[in-house]
């Protein structure tokens, strides 16, 4: 099959001749030898029977009537430019819409193409295998991280985490819900929830649960710094839906009410974001 660049070059060259043919001052007697290859290509001619100097001797089983007429016009010295243009348009349309003829390949070229395809396939399989191994590694890392989380929070909370993708943690000041990817909800009191955003600096290198472990440790044992580091986002009312989510994350059913009551009774924390 002809390459795209060859085909494009052929079209460019033909365009040059096309402009020449459409010029009323064009005379085929001086240009017929140079246009023959293009004409042959357009007409799908085998090139054995045609005499390209006049239309009378031109033969091709596949050539359209319009092609013959256009060729006849091109090959005569005194032609009707208007008529020629009409036929030329038809020929040109046909030329540009037909597929490029497939070139005959040598045995060497066929071998080269076969080798290139084989190399492409090998590269594709290698990439596929690598992606598969990478995915297995990530899955193994996530499993390992979950085992560590189990050591830290115990069976019940771990089961909640498996089910909901979030875990409840009680810090020194507040209760928190940690979700993967660095989303944390802090129970403020007065039925309010503060959204916080904090995560591992290079979290994409680590399994998701490592992110949860890092937040969990910081909340349990270094809450002050956690609060300073986290970006504070929305503060909103704790809806019934949220309450269900908190329960699902492992907080005892009566825990929310108790914690909110305690929070209301507690002094303002002075960090400027408490409700």
């Amino acid at each position, binding site marked *: 099959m002809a390459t795209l660049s060859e085909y494009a070059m052929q079209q460019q060259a033909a365009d040059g001749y096309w402009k020449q043919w459409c010029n009323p001052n064009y005379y085929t007697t001086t240009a017929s030898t140079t246009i023959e290859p293009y004409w042959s290509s357009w007409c799908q001619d085998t090139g054995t029977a045609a005499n390209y100097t006049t239309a009378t001797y031109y033969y091709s089983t596949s050539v359209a009537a319009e092609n013959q007429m256009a060729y006849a016009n091109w090959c005569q010295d005194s032609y009707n430019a208007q008529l020629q243009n009409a036929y030329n348009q038809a020929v040109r349309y046909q030329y540009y819409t037909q597929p490029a003829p497939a070139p005959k390949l040598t045995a060497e070229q066929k071998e080269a193409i076969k080798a290139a395809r084989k190399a492409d396939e090998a590269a594709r399989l290698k990439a596929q295998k690598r992606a598969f191994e990478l995915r297995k590694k990530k899955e193994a890392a996530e499993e390992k991280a979950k085992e*560590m989380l189990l050591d830290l929070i115990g069976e019940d909370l771990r089961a909640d985490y498996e089910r909901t993708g979030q875990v409840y943690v009680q810090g020194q000041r507040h209760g928190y819900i940690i979700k993967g990817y660095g989303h944390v909800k802090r129970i403020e009191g007065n039925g309010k929830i503060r959204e916080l955003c904090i995560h591992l600096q290079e979290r994409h290198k680590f399994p998701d649960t490592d992110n949860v*472990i890092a937040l969990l440790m910081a909340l349990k044992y270094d809450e002050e710094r956690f609060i300073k580091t986290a970006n504070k986002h929305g503060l909103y009312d704790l809806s019934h839906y949220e309450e269900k989510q908190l329960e699902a994350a492992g907080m005892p059913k009566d825990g929310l009410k108790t914690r909110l009551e305690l929070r209301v009774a507690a002094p303002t924390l002075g960090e400027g974001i408490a409700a």
Partner: protein
Amino acid sequence: MLNLTEMRWLDETGDMKIAFNPDNKDEVEAAETQFDDLVEKGYTAYAAEKDGSQGKKMKKFDPKAGRIILVPKLKGG
């Protein structure tokens, strides 16, 4: 029964874990080297009881901490 100290740190494979005898000088030195390397990389260390009941942030290596957990640096999102 020998009371080993466990040291774990988060990494791309999930986590790494070593256990060492806090009374064995060589093992303690090796663990401390690892600890210092991680802290230098920005890890924060926590000492936590094995049952999770008590814990605190560590400022320096303590071979008798029971369980040491190191986590990489956090940032606000």
